[in-house]
Every structure is written in structure tokens, then in C-alpha cells.
């Protein structure tokens, strides 16, 4: 078994129009910049994929990564918890112009909905958002005297993931807080595509140290020196 994909272009080649795509990362930490840019390259060359629904905690920053994906006009809808950042101009303009749809989800509920999608749990109850505007229209139930909101699972056609080490069977480790949504999104996507800093042979990652077991990963591509969103933005980078 070898889940290695030779290059970034091949890695993102199966993502079709109107796909639901989860993108890992919290702000710039653990964000798969190179995979996102490869997807933008494909769109520029072919006009596809377009009309994407993207799931991410944020809405991109500056003019690279997720912000560049939105700027390219590929995203129809964003499901996120916090569409703000140091420099959220791209999303903000698109949103205020009515060019992109927003589904706002509390951060913990977003994480749990993604996990539920991966774990075969179609719905669960959380206290988060009870009594607020974000609970409007959702079923409410009382358990042990306290009110909870019913939330539904969230699944995706593809996930774009950034990990640290990956073995050929897809077992993954992460770096620091770059872990964030990445392991959950691997679980919730039909096809999880992972960029790793290094691909190693099966057996080179201690079974105790595996964070995402390979069963949740469909393909991985090596990106030796991945870019960091924060540094790109500080240098004023634009992916155009």
C-alpha cells in the first residue's frame, strides 16, 4: 500500500465543481497553503473547480491561501466560526457584495459537527448557542433540567490537510497547534488529501505517536518546506 501522490497538481485533480471541501488550519497554523494554491492553479488553467463550499475555522487572511481561493471566485459558500483575521479584506468584500454565502457556526460546534461526520453520528446536542440567534430554527431538547441545541454532522467530499510526517500508509503526525481541525477533517471527508513535510516508510512512525491513523487518509503529497501563512502575509505576498 502506498498512498503517495507524485505532485500537488495530481493531488487536487479530482476535486470537482460544487464539491464540499474542508480545509485544515486555524488561521495560518496547519493551513495547507500549497494544496490550496495548487487548486487555484487548476482553476486558472481549466476554469474548475468552481462553486465550492469550503469549511474552515476562518475566512482567509491577506491574498494567499484560503483568501486567494475566495479572491479567485471559486467559493460559493463558506462554513466557518470566525471570518475575521488581521487582514480579512477579500472575504469581507465578497460577503458584503453578496458574492459569497456564510454559515456561521460556533467554533466548538464546528469541531464537533466535523467529528460527528467522521464518526457516523448524524446529530448531537450541545449547550452552545442555546438562546442565541445561531440556534434559531434548530431543535431544542431539555436533558437533566438544562436546554441543549441539536446540531447535525458535517461531512465533505474532500479535505485539504497539512500534517508534519506521513508514512506511505497515510499515518500522520502534526506540528504543535497546527493540529487543530486537521485530524477531524481527515475523518469527515470522503477523500482526505494531505501535504506533509516528509513522507516516510511504513513503520517509521511509532504506532503510539500516530495522531491520524491511515484509514482516514486517501492520499499524501510531500511539500518539503511548507510556507507559513503568517510569514507570507508579513511579506505582503499575493497569490495572483
Amino acid at each position, binding site marked *: *500500500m502506498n498512498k503517495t501522490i507524485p505532485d500537488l497538481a495530481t493531488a487536487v485533480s479530482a476535486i470537482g465543481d460544487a464539491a464540499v471541501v474542508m480545509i485544515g488550519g486555524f488561521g495560518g497554523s496547519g493551513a495547507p497553503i500549497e494544496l490550496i494554491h495548487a487548486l487555484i492553479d487548476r482553476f486558472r488553467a481549466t476554469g474548475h473547480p468552481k462553486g465550492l463550499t469550503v469549511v474552515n475555522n476562518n475566512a482567509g487572511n491577506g491574498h494567499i491561501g484560503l483568501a486567494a481561493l475566495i479572491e479567485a471566485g471559486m467559493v460559493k459558500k463558506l462554513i466557518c466560526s470566525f471570518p475575521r483575521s488581521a487582514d480579512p479584506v477579500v472575504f469581507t468584500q465578497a460577503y458584503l457584495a453578496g458574492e459569497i454565502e456564510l454559515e456561521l457556526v460556533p467554533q466548538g460546534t464546528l469541531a464537533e459537527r466535523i*467529528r460527528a*461526520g*467522521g*464518526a*457516523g*453520528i448524524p446529530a448531537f446536542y450541545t449547550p452552545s448557542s442555546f438562546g442565541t440567534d445561531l440556534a434559531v430554527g434548530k431543535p431544542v431538547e431539555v436533558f437533566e433540567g438544562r436546554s441543549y441545541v441539536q446540531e447535525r454532522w458535517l461531512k465533505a467530499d474532500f479535505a485539504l490537510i497539512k500534517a508534519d510526517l506521513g*508514512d*506511505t*500508509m497515510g*499515518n500522520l503526525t502534526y506540528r504543535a497547534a497546527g493540529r487543530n481541525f486537521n485530524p477531524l477533517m481527515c*475523518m469527515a471527508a470522503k477523500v482526505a488529501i494531505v501535504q506533509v513535510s516528509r513522507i516516510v*516508510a*511504513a*513503520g517509521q*512512525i511509532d*504506532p*503510539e505517536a*500516530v495522531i491520524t*491513523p*491511515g*484509514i*482516514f487518509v486517501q492520499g499524501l503529497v510531500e511539500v518539503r518546506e511548507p510556507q507559513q501563512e503568517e510569514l507570507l502575509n508579513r511579506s505582503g505576498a499575493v497569490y495572483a
Partner: protein
Amino acid sequence: MSDKLSNAQIAWRAAQDIEDGAYVNLGIGFPEMVAKFQPPGREAIFHTENGILNFGEAPAAGQEDWDLINAGKKAVTLKPGAAFFHHADSFAMVRGGHLDVAILGAYQVAENGDLANWSTGPKGVPAVGGAMDLVHGAKRVAVITEHVTKDGKPKLLDRCTLPLTGVACVTRVYTSLAVIDIDAGRFVLREKLAAISIEALQALTGAKLHLQGAVTDLIVPEV
């Protein structure tokens, strides 16, 4: 060849349908035997619900690590690329549709795919384990079983009489006499031992066997 397949032969036949690269859960007991008959050139990754992916054979006696066991509480070894995880993650793999195939034993299977394999009725101590989870989520749930009970009664029925493990979950049954698909609420006969007639097989089966395309000979080596 005798008039029916041995357990090992049933397991061998089931193993031939496991694709290269498949993630597989084998039920405790008889189904564990399937791992031995993995066709050459194909690699399956075995999942055990207590928290290991890609475990291998039993260690030599005296070499056991009793924290390294499978769901049947037998000592196992690891293959390269193994991973450990806790029970909630393990059953996320099961329930979340990440396994390609689960192969389970059965007391009874009904033509609509209902499975009974956890309880023989109200007496004694009931125990379910992971059976009710395993029948949901795997992309393909197959059963391996004797075609009839020890006293000759059908195990393939129009409706299970024993307590159910899951509803409409089984899609293929490998028995000591035949290979039968469950398709749109019907048993569809795919393969049978050459030595038994369709009529004789039907007489040992508690629901109608439908024919749909060719019925081929069930040919299994001595194993």
C-alpha cells in the same frame, strides 16, 4: 472434497473477495481465520475494535505482550505502519463508514439482510460487544457461516427468530455450501458446490433462493 466446506474453506472463499488495500474488521472467533487466506499480492489492513490498525499474526508462545491484544483478547503482533487509538476513535472508524468490509459470524441471516449473531435468547448472560456497531458503517458487511445449524435447521431465513444484531445490514453470505448475495430484500444465489443441486440447497434454506445471472461452482482448495 467432502459434501460441504470446512470452516477454513469458508474463510478462504471470503478472503478472495477482499480487495488489495482494504481496511477489514474480522469478528471474534471463526471470522478471524479469514486473515490467514489473504490472496498473495494483496495487502489488507486489519482493524481490531479495541484500538489497533494493521496488526498481524499471533506472537510465539512466551513472546506475548498482554497489552497488545485483539478484540478476542488474543495476543497479536504489529505490522509496519500500525497505529494505536482509543475506543471512541476506533468506533468512529467503524460507525463512520471507514472500513471497507466487516466479516462476521451468524446464528441467523434473513433475506432482507437482518443479522442475528449476539444472543441465543433470554437465558444465560447476555453479551453484545462490538457486534451492533460493526454491522453499521462498514461499506460491506459479509457473514461466514455453516449453511445449517448443528441439528440441520436453516440459518438463512425469511425472518430471524433470534434477537437481532442489526437490521438490513448483511450484503453477502459465505456458507459451507454456497455464496449468496442479499439484494433488494432477496437471497440471490451466486455460487454453490457442484455436488449439490439448487433444489437440495433450497431445501436447506429457510427463504427462497433467487437466481439472477449464472450460478457458478463454488470451488475452494483444500486448506
